[in-house]
């Protein structure tokens, strides 16, 4: 790496002469070693999934959750340093609850991503801190109804000034990925961690931009993609952890919840079956490392 020996990589917040912040790039390396996390924005909800690498047989299966609830309608998952992920979640919860305290309404996914983007970016500015060793995926469902403010007691006028606007659209699914630099974009499908390239390739095939994929199918695709991406990390065992947020008419009624056991197991069964079906194809995929990643390591 060009950074070695130059000294420009020894402290945070310092640019190298060619305009790079090496500490941030090293943080990205930490992310690239983590278990794969993905998020899918479906037409009627959002799925979050993570490949939870089992580091010891002494760990209790199903314990030590990696996907966290930030507010009723929002969840987050991250790849990279797990404690950094925990702190990210803790800060996100504080942001969500302080938003509610100020505005008396739930924070939107976009606003939370913005707040957290700002927060992570601040950790690239000072020599006394290091950047976050995670890339986080935040998924949420912003209510499609005109929400009452928290604590509202009445219904307000039905028409006229301050009244309801007929046919106005609110809310919908939200999916954002926030990187160690503080960079965040909104996505149809997001992937990070060790198997991100494979996962991204699979996500692209889903044509998510068309907005046709249902949440139910999204869960199955998410499980399959985690299984496919695990090929990049084959020597280690893993557990699949999945959560979802549906619209108000859906199974979670706008809340961020774990995918129920039966549905998760069915999705895993289908994922394993799909994997057996095209095992040979996967072998070839593993070899062609994409160009984008190489550039980073220069």
């Amino acid at each position: 790496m060009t950074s070695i020996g130059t000294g420009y990589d020894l402290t945070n917040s310092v640019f190298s002469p060619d305009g790079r912040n090496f500490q941030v790039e090293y943080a990205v390396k930490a992310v690239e070693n983590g278990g794969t996390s993905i998020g899918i924005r479906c037409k009627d909800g959002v799925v979050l999934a993570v490949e939870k690498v089992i580091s010891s047989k002494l760990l209790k299966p199903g314990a030590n959750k990696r996907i966290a609830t930030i507010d009723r309608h929002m969840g987050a998952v991250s790849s990279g340093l797990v404690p950094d992920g925990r702190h990210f979640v803790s800060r996100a919860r504080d942001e969500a609850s302080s938003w509610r305290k100020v505005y008396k309404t739930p924070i939107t996914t976009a606003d939370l991503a913005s707040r957290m983007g700002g927060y992570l970016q601040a950790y690239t500015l000072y020599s006394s801190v290091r950047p976050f060793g995670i890339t986080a995926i935040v998924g949420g469902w912003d209510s499609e109804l005109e929400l009452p403010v928290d604590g509202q007691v009445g219904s307000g006028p039905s028409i006229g000034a301050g009244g309801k606007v007929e046919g106005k659209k609110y809310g919908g699914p939200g999916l954002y990925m926030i990187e160690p630099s503080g960079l965040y974009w909104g996505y149809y499908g997001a992937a990070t961690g060790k198997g991100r390239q494979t996962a991204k390739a699979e996500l692209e095939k889903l044509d998510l931009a068309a907005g046709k994929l249902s949440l139910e199918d999204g869960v199955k695709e998410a499980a399959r993609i985690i299984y496919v991406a695990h090929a990049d990390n084959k020597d280690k065992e893993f557990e699949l952890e999945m959560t979802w947020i549906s619209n108000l008419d859906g199974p979670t009624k706008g809340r961020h919840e774990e995918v129920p056991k039966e549905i998760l197991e069915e999705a895993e069964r289908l994922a394993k079956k799909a994997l057996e079906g095209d095992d040979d194809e996967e072998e070839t995929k593993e070899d062609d490392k994409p160009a984008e990643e190489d550039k980073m390591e220069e």
Partner: protein
Amino acid sequence: MNHLPQAWGRPRDDVYGAYDSSYLQSHGPNQHTQQPIVTGTSVIALKFQDGVVIAADNLASYGSLARFTDVKRLRKFAGTSVVGFGGDVSDMQYLDRLLNSLDIEEAYSSSGHSLNAKNLHTYLSKVFYKRRSDFNPLWNQVLVVGLDDDKKPFLASADLLGTTFSAPSLATGFGAHLAQPLLRKVAPDEETASKLSKEQALAAVKESMKVLFYRDARSLDKYSIAIITADGIDLKEDEKLENQSWAFADQIRGYGTQVN
């Protein structure tokens, strides 16, 4: 004309006198609630064999003025419980938000168990007691209904002083005088309440709401009513009192226009 910016938009001193900014002063002793402002009247509730019925009208009064007529005073919590609020409406809204944030924090851990009505009542009563001990009370009396740890019907009261109690039937405010005797007739003890049918309980509560509307000047004929059982919460917030009869009214003597 005073052109100084700090005078912009202010009533003219020469016409209205100096602006009284005393209420804006940030020094001096802390100002705490000394009285409720916009208030809700009675809340009534009755246990039956597999749940609890609770009701409160939709009025918020400003003194004797019927100020807001579309105020929902039964608040759902965590899909398991309902809290019925009497007393100050802004304190009710504060508590509603407080309980909301409690529910959100509970959902952080995915343990699957949620707070029941009994847990909620304990929490609320400690909030009330803390605030009264700080001489900064939340001016409410509330009824908490739902199920307890053994999935049995739960009904308890908590108020601005932190006083708590539980009974087969409860009523706050005016309801303690007017509705409670009617409800106690239907359910004098836990034993009797545990044999009441839902229909019997519902009828007794609706009858009590009617009597309250007849005699409580700060009440309304629009009300909310909720039935809480193990199956969940059935909350209706836009009910009208039915089968009113004011035949008793012309018998009333002693005040108003009919002095004798």
